[in-house]
């Protein structure tokens, strides 16, 4: 009995050694990415592994909270750990990560012609102060207005072109629906005090002509910025926004819209993809999408783009760089964006047959003109100033004048560091 047992144990050890030996044939790299939207990441990774049989990519999903993603990466990099070989990076992190020395320089990966294949306006962030390239744009995001086609048609409206129009439409529709015993919210979005609110606040302020900074001085203490914040407060005061809007992140806001409880929603293109998906939305046949309403200075949308970067402490630098280049390449972006609904960063991909007739092709013009948030190594603190003050205005605890004054003073202190 004992002999048989020891024989079985030896056999198991040998087999497991063989498995380890076999596993050594392939290089495994870890890809830390955002939670998968409709299988986009899996599709891109599958395409990569088909083209590169010697490399296996392990997909590691982040939490859906952007601050949490940054915390996870910070912990890994502070330990100089090599577990995150390639990862997705929000467009507001590069400055901080580059100055911390956490990103592997990607020099030599692209030629000048290849770099010109990306949308030009989003490439600045990829380069550090030393001129080296540290990140590659993977996908863009542009804020869009998702709306209920049936409700607008019922009251004879076209999708609102300005914020004022949106407020008037919502008030009429909400009153009408409430009379029929079907109370509904006008507008939902992610106005919890976090990065999502910063994106929305910037859009409102830019829509009325505000600019963040000029020549190193923060210029948000302006009538334009105050107008932008004031329209947010007006929407809350007049009952147009959903009751819980100041507690929502993007997923919560989508849940409200997909349950049929809101007329309009400001979100990213992937939210539209979810809203028209019968498995996720109960109003999937009645959803339309269009550009965001404009203020007096036009309609602006925040670039919520994500970049791909390589861990400076990785032990598989070559494989990681190959994967990074592929997933940001033509094939990788088409595979990812056709499933996820996010916008590619290569203009050439927009005419690919995979996007024919989809919203992606419609949003090409917006994609070219999304506006980036300010880049700074201390971006988290600047963002906190913006969302804290926008929240105070939305709640009526501060007037727009006080908010822009405080915001500008504190941001200037950060910029002066």
């Amino acid at each position: 009995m004992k002999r048989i047992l020891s024989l079985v144990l030896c056999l198991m050890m040998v087999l497991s050694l063989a498995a380890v030996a076999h596993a050594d044939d392939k290089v495994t790299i870890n890809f830390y990415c955002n939670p998968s939207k409709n299988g986009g990441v899996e599709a891109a990774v599958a395409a990569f592994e088909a083209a590169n049989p010697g490399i296996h990519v392990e997909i590691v999903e982040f939490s859906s909270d952007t601050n949490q993603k940054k915390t996870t990466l910070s912990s890994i990099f502070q330990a100089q750990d090599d577990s995150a070989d390639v990862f997705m990076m929000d467009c507001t992190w590069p400055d901080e990560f580059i100055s911390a020395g956490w990103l592997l320089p990607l020099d030599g990966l692209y030629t000048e012609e290849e770099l010109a294949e990306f949308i030009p306006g989003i490439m600045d962030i990829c380069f550090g102060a030393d001129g080296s390239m540290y990140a590659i744009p993977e996908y863009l995001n542009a804020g869009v207005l998702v709306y209920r086609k049936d409700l607008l048609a019922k009251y004879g409206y076209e999708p609102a072109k300005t914020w004022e129009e949106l407020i008037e439409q919502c008030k009429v529709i909400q009153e009408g629906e409430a009379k029929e015993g079907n109370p509904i919210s006008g507008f939902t979005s992610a106005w919890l005090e976090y990065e999502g609110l910063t994106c929305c606040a910037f859009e409102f302020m830019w829509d009325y002509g505000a600019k963040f900074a000029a020549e190193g001085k923060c210029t948000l203490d302006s009538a334009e910025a105050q107008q932008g914040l004031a329209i947010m407060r007006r929407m809350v005061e007049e009952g147009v926004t959903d009751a819980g809007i100041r507690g929502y992140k993007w997923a919560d806001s989508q849940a409200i819209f997909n349950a049929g409880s809101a007329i309009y929603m400001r979100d990213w293109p992937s939210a539209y993809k979810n809203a028209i998906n019968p498995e996720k939305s109960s109003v999937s046949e009645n959803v339309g999408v269009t550009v965001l309403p404009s203020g007096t200075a036009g309609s602006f949308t925040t670039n919520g783009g994500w970049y791909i970067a390589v861990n400076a402490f990785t032990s598989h630098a070559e494989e990681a760089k190959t994967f990074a280049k592929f997933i940001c390449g033509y094939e990788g972006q088409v595979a990812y964006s056709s499933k996820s609904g996010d916008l590619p960063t290569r203009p050439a991909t927009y005419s690919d047959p995979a996007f024919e007739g989809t919203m992606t092709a419609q949003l090409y013009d917006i994609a070219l003109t999304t506006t980036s948030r300010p880049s700074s190594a201390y971006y988290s603190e600047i963002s906190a100033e913006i969302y804290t003050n926008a929240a105070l205005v939305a709640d009526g605890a501060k007037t727009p004048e006080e908010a822009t004054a405080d915001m500008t003073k504190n941001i200037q202190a950060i910029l002066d560091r």
Partner: protein
Amino acid sequence: MHNKQRLVFGYLALIPAIIVFAVFIVYPVFNTFYLSFCNYRTQTIRQGAKFIGLANYAQMFGDDKMWTALKFTVLFTLISVVLESVLGMLCALIMNRQGKTRALVCAMILIPWCIPTVVSGLMWNYIFAESYGILNFLLQILGVTSQPVRWLTDSRYAFLSILISDVWKTVPYMSLLMLSALKTVDSSYLEAAQIDGANKVQSFFKISMPCMKPIILVAVMFRTIQSFRIYDLIRVLTNGGPQGKTTSLTIYTITQYTTYGNMGYGAALAVLTFIISMIIAVCFQDGVKSKLEV
């Protein structure tokens, strides 16, 4: 000789525990103290930690957000510990009664403690949610309110919501400690009081309470220090709250440390929390000592 061998072996057997303690507790605590005197940020992490003396502490005492967080934390701790102690004692008295349904009642009272804090936070999120929460639904059906109450996004109600969730979660813990305290009261004292004509309330306050004081003080001390460090419940419910009004000291510390990458300042805030916890412990120790010496 045999005894000495056993002694040596005993000390050797302690070594793994000492190593774990040193690595996971002693080193991080000392490292945090050291960092609190340094300028150490992710943005300049390549330059290492630069010693700057008490500059972080000076910044801390001039920081409005720190004082707001401290005031909130102190107020929250005071109210929640008092509520939890009183309700805990009531539950302990219920659990102490003999009866057929005793096991069931005990189990029901203890359930909130068994649910992980984050899970119960998410649960309360659904209860308190403005437009789809059960609480607002019930209030509207009963006709108490016509508009949804903004439990988590109105600065007046957010404090209350967090208090309710925390008290609900922690009363079982306090009731267990109070129950063990109740058991230590010598029944002969209570019988003697009954014979002398004391009613239940009188015998509780005049006999049981003085006997239980040392244990109650220890329980309240532990709970106060724990409550002072509240983080996960607030993180899940309001994330520091509408307009930063429900930011506890720990939430502020972690925001500075991880979100802003300002690790030196975060360490100084952590040291502040440590010092306050020590002060609480010392205050209670003195109280316990004087009671025991009676």
